[in-house]
């Protein structure tokens, strides 16, 4: 029994922390947030050079061969820094190819993805659908030995600058579609979070060769999904940690009625509540990350618990931090709103807390 990071994991954490703190100071974050497409190719190149694009991918395919605990460590720091980066979407694509791809696809797409040479992103949810987890409607019509895709995907993350999409079809399969393939139209969405962009992607008669469709379908993707839930939950935990620290610093500094406001229990108890939610989220995340690496049979429940808890904490803690800051916390000038927006956006991605609680209920009530 040892529930803490190893020295190696602490080293990953320290490296990530220092790198991200130096690259994503407020001014730079705001530059990226205000840019047209929200991309930061130089920053992504540096992350790829650090091995992050393939952190939890097999060494055999050019990854670092590390585990989901290590991935969670990295994502917690990504959230702490609120780094605008395609790391999440690229990790989804990487894990899907790694766990469900053919060797041919791994050679052509996973290897360059792991090195940062090519970037992938998932195109899962269908426009106009309720975006239920695991249910897709996009049509994959048989065409010779391949398929033709027709439909529109929404909530596709980091599409600008991506090289390929992993498109889910109604039969539960995934297809690799190059972003510049004929019939693909990418339209940026307007989203609350300017540091993680979403687009809609129209596919009009896009032909996919047989070799570009992944062999797995449906439940084969659950292990990818559960690992990604852990990664997002880790990012939300980092968001909670950072905004808790911001609230505590402010409450020590800001004076009203002749005292620092943190001396008042209305404020200090709010901060204690933020700590509780942050630590609970962290425990749930690392418990699930450990399960992914060491006890995969308990991953589905643990991942749903982590995602449900961190989905809530990931926006409630920044929200409480805004309240501690008072009026200044509501201004665009203060960075807090970016954290609230990312946290709320994360809460909705890959199953919201209600959806994941229902999975927990399935496990405990049937």
């Amino acid at each position, binding site marked *: *029994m040892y529930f803490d990071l190893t020295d190696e994991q602490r080293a990953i954490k320290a490296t990530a922390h220092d790198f991200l703190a130096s690259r994503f100071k407020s001014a730079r974050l705001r530059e990226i947030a205000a840019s047209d497409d929200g991309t930061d190719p130089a920053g992504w190149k540096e992350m790829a050079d650090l091995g992050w694009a393939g952190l939890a991918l097999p060494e055999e395919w050019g990854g670092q061969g590390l585990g989901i605990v290590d991935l969670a460590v990295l994502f917690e720091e990504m959230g702490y820094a609120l780094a605008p980066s395609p790391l999440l979407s690229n990790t989804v694509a990487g894990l899907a190819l790694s766990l469900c791809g053919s060797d041919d696809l791994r050679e052509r797409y996973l290897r360059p993805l792991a090195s940062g040479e090519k970037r992938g992103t998932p195109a899962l949810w269908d426009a106009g659908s309720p975006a239920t987890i695991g249910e897709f409607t996009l049509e994959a019509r048989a065409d010779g030995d391949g398929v033709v895709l027709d439909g529109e995907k929404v909530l596709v993350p980091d599409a600008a600058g991506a090289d390929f999409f992993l498109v889910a079809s109604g039969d539960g399969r995934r297809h690799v579609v190059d972003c510049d393939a004929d019939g693909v139209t990418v339209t940026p969405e307007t989203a609350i979070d300017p540091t993680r962009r979403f687009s809609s992607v129209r596919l009009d008669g896009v032909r996919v060769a047989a070799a570009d469709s992944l062999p797995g379908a449906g439940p084969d993707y659950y292990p990818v999904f559960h690992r990604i839930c852990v990664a997002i939950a880790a990012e939300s935990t980092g968001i909670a940690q950072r905004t808790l620290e911001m609230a505590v610093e402010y409450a020590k500094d800001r004076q009203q009625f002749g005292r620092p406001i943190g*001396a008042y*229990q209305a404020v200090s*108890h709010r901060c*204690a509540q933020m700590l509780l939610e942050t630590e609970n989220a962290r425990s749930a995340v690392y418990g699930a990350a450990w399960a992914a690496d*060491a006890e995969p049979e308990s991953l589905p429940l643990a991942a749903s618990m982590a995602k449900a808890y961190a989905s809530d904490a990931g926006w409630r803690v920044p929200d409480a931090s805004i309240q501690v800051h008072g009026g200044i916390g509501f201004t665009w000038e203060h960075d807090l709103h970016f954290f609230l927006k990312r946290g709320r956006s994360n809460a909705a991605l890959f199953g919201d807390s209600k959806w994941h609680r229902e999975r927990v209920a399935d496990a405990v*009530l*049937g």
Partner: protein
Amino acid sequence: MDLTLSPSEEEFRDEVRTWIEENNPGPEPEGSLDEVMSFRREWQLKLHAAGWAGISWPKEFGGRGATMIEQAIFVGEAARQEAPSPANVLGLAMGGPVVIAHGTDEQKQRYLEPILTGEEIWCQGFSEPESGSDLASLKTRAVKDGDEWVVTGQKVWTTFAQYAKWCMLVARTDPDAPKHQGLTYFLMDMEQEGVEAKPLVQITGEGEFNEVFMEEARIPEANVVGEVGNGWSVAITTLMNERAGLAFGAIAQIQNSLGRLAKLAKEVRVNGGSAADDTYYRQRIAQLHIEAETMRLNAYRGLTKTMQSGIPGPEGSLGKWQWADINQGLTELALEIEGAYAPLARGSEHAVANGAWQYGFLRSRANSIEGGTTDILKNIIAERVLGLPRLR
């Protein structure tokens, strides 16, 4: 990171599991507190004979010298199998460890063995009517008279004082010193003329707690623990002992309650189905499971930190608060599921689950008060973990 038990820990767990399975006397009698106490005395004798009383105590003092993980395993397993509590809970968890840490050789010789056997029950005389959360403001006076101390004052919330032989008493020996420095820690004989214990009737109708009145009670000099004037720091050790290890018992107890809650939800009819099919109840039950799991994992993290550095991390201070929240939330939800039947208590023919949840609902009101209120815990977390300024 490794959330599994080592082979030797698994072996220990299996040993504990088997022993409790074979020796657990089952649920406590539903009669008077006297009957419950004699049931618990018998259980403690059994525990002691098999070497399970004082498992955290060093071997030289009659304990088992178990590691923190082994303690956690034992407490968790006993709670999981719903074994009774030993009669001398406070002596085992607080009295013994304090005597071991601060007592003289004579005190160790005199007090430890009867704590382990349960022959002498201990109680704790800290809180007073005017000194609850602000414990250090306590007013019970002890005045030196020859080689004795003479004690006058009142204590309250004294669990099992009516059965106790010894009271861990904190009294003011120097009224002129700053409030934390004028206190001394005594072992007071409860069986004397100047001491009277009166049960306080709780909102459940039971009387676990007492008021203790001291009118010129006598304590020999030899019964000071630590130094005169050092009572605050000795008392703090006691309180820390109270919290250590409890988490794992509390977690197992919550898991048992969650199992009963699921059973209740499946039995109660709601909108043509069972409450377990109802989205609203499913969501709330799931949330309680998630919170119980975070509490369990926090306790593991705290245990790892304590084993490494001797000091629990910030998550260690959260457990008692979480426990109170979850336990209250559980019983509140159970009554909500019972709906119109919620008012019916044990003794009523139509009470759901023989009124167990009504009792639990009422008893759990104390969870956020006993052993440090949730409000005070939030102050402690704000000041000591987050470093926020003190109000005072």
